[in-house]
């Protein structure tokens, strides 16, 4: 019996030690993080996405802005606190979480344009009506003023954008009997070119389109929406405020995609279903000349510049670009869709006026010109586009130079309400078309059902 008493006392001691350990840890750890100011010095945190080496240009821009900012605000330290992830949705999840509380919220955030409206609706962002008096805001192309407006007030300042183009391999097209300065005028001319290439060069992908999940937004954006904008149908009717369940434009685009699949004109499933499809296209397939045409964003050629992960100097001679035509060649003849990024102020930022001043500094044309020139992003205003720093900076990339002018007249996505789910649905539908699981007619039906489900009763038409 004595053994048990000593034994259990021993166990009690161990147990109590354990409890004490945990308690001590808890006590010592109770000091949470607190930012802010101390003794006249202030900190301004800016948070963006770090999605690989190309994001260095972003950081350099903010560092340059911080240097300028120091001249007018000597007591402020600018702290760049990026979120490391290549997946945008993971970035937003973290960003939205940070924005929920004043103790974690940054002062300035880097927002993708298509999330500004829903973040504004959520109450995460501070309204910036003062932007309307800002010279650089007034210089923005009109599209980019509208993108970040919610209930008529701007909630973010657009800083950069991108457009879509058709990249084509000159020699591959010439071999198929097409001109080296090929200019498609309708969706059909793209199909005809693709058929010609397929006939003459069976080992080559005639046309690369982004389709299906897992790429999600990229497929929806570059593989569907930009084409839809060349028709008279829209995802969302601005006049009536309702989401479209279908229409002749949808019919045309779905048929275009179905033909691509049926005639074997697009890339094989193993390519488009690759979560790294963009990398594969830009740094593997294009340099080995396995792709004749590709609908992709304006940054593609900047991947080939020296200093990138896989530079390819011959790219600028091998490839050329063509505008995206409207579906039937009707006015305005070309179509485009843009994304882009902006700077915004979280509602729970500890110092909104300071944040606003930093945004103004960062948006000076000289700084933006330098940034856009090296980052493969397009300027959103004429001041920057014409700035000599920018034009000389992109002089080695003729393909990119072509893209600059589109920013002035491009479109943007209806990124509010059920947009996120609808975008995922579009990607799912295009993927099923590319797998041969849906015909164009079935795709239209599926899409109509999706829209009714996501948008809800009374919010749809057509």
């Amino acid at each position, binding site marked *: 019996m004595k053994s*048990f008493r000593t034994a259990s006392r021993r*166990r009690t001691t161990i*147990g109590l030690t354990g*409890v004490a350990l945990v308690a001590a840890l808890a006590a010592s750890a109770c000091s949470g993080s607190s930012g802010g100011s101390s003794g006249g010095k202030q900190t301004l945190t800016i948070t963006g996405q770090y999605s690989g080496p190309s994001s260095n240009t972003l950081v350099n821009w903010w560092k340059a802005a911080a240097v300028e900012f120091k001249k007018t605000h000597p007591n402020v330290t600018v702290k760049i606190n990026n979120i490391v992830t290549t997946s945008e949705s993971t970035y937003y*999840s973290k960003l939205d979480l940070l924005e929920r509380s004043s103790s974690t919220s940054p002062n300035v955030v880097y927002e993708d344009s298509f999330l500004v409206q829903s973040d504004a609706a959520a109450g995460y962002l501070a309204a910036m009506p003062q932007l309307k008096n800002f010279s650089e805001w007034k210089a923005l192309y009109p599209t980019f003023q509208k993108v970040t407006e919610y209930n008529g007030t701007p909630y973010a300042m657009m800083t950069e954008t991108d457009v879509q183009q058709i990249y084509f391999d000159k020699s591959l097209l010439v071999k198929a009997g097409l001109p080296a300065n090929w200019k498609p005028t309708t969706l059909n001319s793209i199909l005809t070119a693709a058929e010609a290439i397929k006939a003459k060069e069976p080992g080559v992908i005639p046309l690369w389109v982004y389709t299906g*999940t897992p790429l999600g937004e990229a497929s929806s954006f570059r593989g569907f929406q930009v084409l839809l904008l060349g028709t008279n149908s829209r995802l969302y009717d601005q006049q009536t405020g309702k989401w479209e369940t279908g229409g002749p434009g949808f019919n045309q685009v779905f048929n275009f995609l179905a033909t691509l699949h049926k005639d074997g004109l697009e890339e094989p499933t193993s390519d488009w279903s690759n979560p790294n499809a963009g990398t594969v296209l830009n740094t593997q397939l294009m340099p080995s000349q396995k792709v004749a045409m590709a609908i992709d964003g304006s940054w593609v050629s900047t991947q080939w510049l020296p200093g990138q992960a896989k530079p390819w100097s011959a790219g600028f001679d091998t490839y050329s670009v063509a505008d995206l035509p409207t579906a039937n060649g009707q006015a305005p003849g070309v179509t485009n869709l843009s994304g882009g990024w902006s700077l915004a102020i979280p509602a729970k930022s500890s110092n909104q006026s300071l944040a606003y001043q930093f945004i103004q500094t960062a948006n000076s044309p000289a700084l933006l010109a330098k940034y856009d020139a090296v980052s493969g992003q397009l300027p959103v205003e004429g001041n920057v586009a014409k700035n000599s720093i920018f034009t000389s900076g992109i002089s080695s990339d003729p393909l990119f130079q072509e893209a600059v002018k589109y920013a002035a007249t491009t479109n943007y996505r209806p990124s509010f309400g059920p947009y996120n*789910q609808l975008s995922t649905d579009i990607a799912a539908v295009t993927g099923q078309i590319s797998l041969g699981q849906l015909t164009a007619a079935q795709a239209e039906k599926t899409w109509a059902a999706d829209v009714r489900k996501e948008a809800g009763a009374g919010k749809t038409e057509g």
Partner: protein
Amino acid sequence: MPSTDSTVVESRVDSVGPRADGGRNRHGKSKARRRRQLLAGAVMLAPFTVLVGVLLGWPIVWTFLLSFTNETLTGPTALHHKYIGFGNFTNLLTSSDFISSLWHSIEYLVGSAWIGQVVLGFVLALLLRRCSRRVQAIVGAVVIMSWIVPEVIAAFMWFALLGQGGVLQEALHSVGIGYSTILTSHPILALNLANAWRGVAFSMMLYMAALAAIPRELLEAAMLDGASAWRRVFSIILPLIKGSILVDVVLVTLATLNDFTLIFTLTGGGPGNASQVLSTYMYQQGFVNYQIAYGTAVSVILLLVGVVLSVFYVRALRRS
């Protein structure tokens, strides 16, 4: 520290034997002793209870409650959400995407967990025990190294191996065998291979230990009686290690149902939804569509599936 050899207790197998529950009931219990034990037990369980209760239990409850709301990560219902009862669950159960994700999860479970780890682990254990010490050590180390590799790295190692233009394709092409990537044509098969590769070490080690505890005499007697290797395995070994097998099945099942990173990095749930399992579906709903309450509802279902399977385990164990 003495080597493990001399510290292994007398051989006994699983739940056979008088000391299945640690010999607690061998002495008579006085009330005082029981009270002392209770006190000691409570104190010793305290750190565990506090840590798990506060840091795990509370979030679980919160998550559970969340699945009954319509909270999103962005948009109007981000900071001001309301209670919608079972709405998420009814949407789930009528969603064809959810049903197919559930089915894929089961395929993944059977393929990569039950066959790829439980069965394969047992086979490997049998194999290695017939090898020389040195080969045991080498091959064992290789298998264990696959287990140690962090999941995301294992994922793109397999991507490089199986993918279009990857290692396997180049190897097969060089000997004239065509190969079009199974990541596209049979994504779940690819996932099963990768996950089995990654996880079999655990089962293998568990079975090696279980096999080592089988008394030599039993098997030698069977051999002398003329029993073939197959008979020995099925009639003697398997029944004796039944407990270990059940343990392995449950643990591997629970771990596999929750597996996320491997699938997400290797196929992203694609092509289309061909390899979308419940965990990637949950991620898509919660983090890509920003419908976190809905995503949480998916995870509640995941947990329920795990619980149901665990109940089967407990029942089976009680019977043995």
